[in-house]
């Protein structure tokens, strides 16, 4: 460059713009944003449209592991150690309380073998677990293909569940984990 313009070197490389629609194939427009379900389904949608699952596991059997307190007294603490099935990988939590006026219950999840807290401290159960209608899949965020389900120790894994009933009434509490037993990483 010369003249009025200072020499500032070559222009930086501009990334090539990505078209919002792919080339027309069989006269059909493809919307690249339309690859997932609705935003409202973020937490519970582990499938990619027209593709498979974001969970990097193939095979294995679906397993629900739970503990139940029928009933846990008002404002009482319940503690239970659950022996986990072998080769269990955690995908989501679920929970319910028969009385849920003041938050139902708080829960702490602790991996006994690795001495790991899976919840930082007791958490209101509805902030951790939904029902079957509203699960939160662990690490399976929108569009992610890097979901990383937590694998407990291969054999003899144990989980310590500590629950606190927040209600001034006896409460029927069920809390558990959904996951896959066996299978291979894909």
């Amino acid at each position, binding site marked *: 460059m010369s003249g009025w313009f200072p020499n500032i070197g070559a222009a930086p490389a501009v990334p090539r713009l990505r078209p919002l629609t792919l080339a027309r194939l069989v006269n059909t427009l493809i919307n690249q944003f339309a690859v997932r379900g609705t935003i*409202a*389904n973020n937490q*519970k*949608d*582990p*499938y990619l449209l027209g593709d*498979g*699952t974001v*969970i990097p*596991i*193939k*095979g*294995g*059997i*679906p*397993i*629900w*592991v*739970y*503990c*139940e*307190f*029928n*009933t846990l007294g008002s404002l009482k603490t319940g503690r*239970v*150690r*659950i*022996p*986990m*099935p072998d080769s269990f990988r955690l*995908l*989501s939590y*679920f*929970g*319910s309380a028969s009385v849920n006026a003041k938050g139902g219950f708080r829960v702490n999840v602790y991996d006994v073998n690795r001495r790991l807290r899976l919840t930082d401290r007791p958490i209101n159960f509805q902030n951790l677990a939904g*029902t*079957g*209608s*509203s*699960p939160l*899949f662990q690490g*399976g965020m929108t569009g992610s293909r890097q979901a990383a389900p937590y694998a407990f120790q291969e054999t003899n894994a144990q989980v310590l*569940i500590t629950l606190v009933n927040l209600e001034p009434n006896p409460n029927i509490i*069920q809390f*558990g984990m959904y996951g*896959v037993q066996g*299978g291979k990483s894909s």
Partner: protein
Amino acid sequence: MTSSPTPAATASGIVKIPRVLIVDAVVPLNTQLPSILTIPQDADFEWWFLAAFRTNAAMKVLITEAATQRAMVFSGSQQSSQTVFNGVFIDNLAGLVANNGAFPIAVPYVMPASRSYQHAFTDSSGAQNTVQLAYHGFALLQVSSS
């Protein structure tokens, strides 16, 4: 040039046909009722979603694969003396498709053709409970390559 039978056909000669399998039960009050789901013998079934209908939420469910006796619902916990192991509350398993509540199995599970899955429904509502589980997925139909 040969063309595949349908766009869903894979190189291995398997066509995925959408299929819904149903388990129905009318559970008398405060009792446990067994019910069996048998996978149709024409194809393996790839299970993707579970949906559930019930007339009362006070209903628990157990599911076991008959041939292998593998339980899908575990209770490893020492429960209180009043608690009997009858499975997961049905609302903790799944909800209605109409309410956007079907539960994604997340890692699709292939159920072999002709295999049976035992269900045990236990009502604790004190009234008759009508329940239906719907297994959504695909029949994996083998197609000949000729």
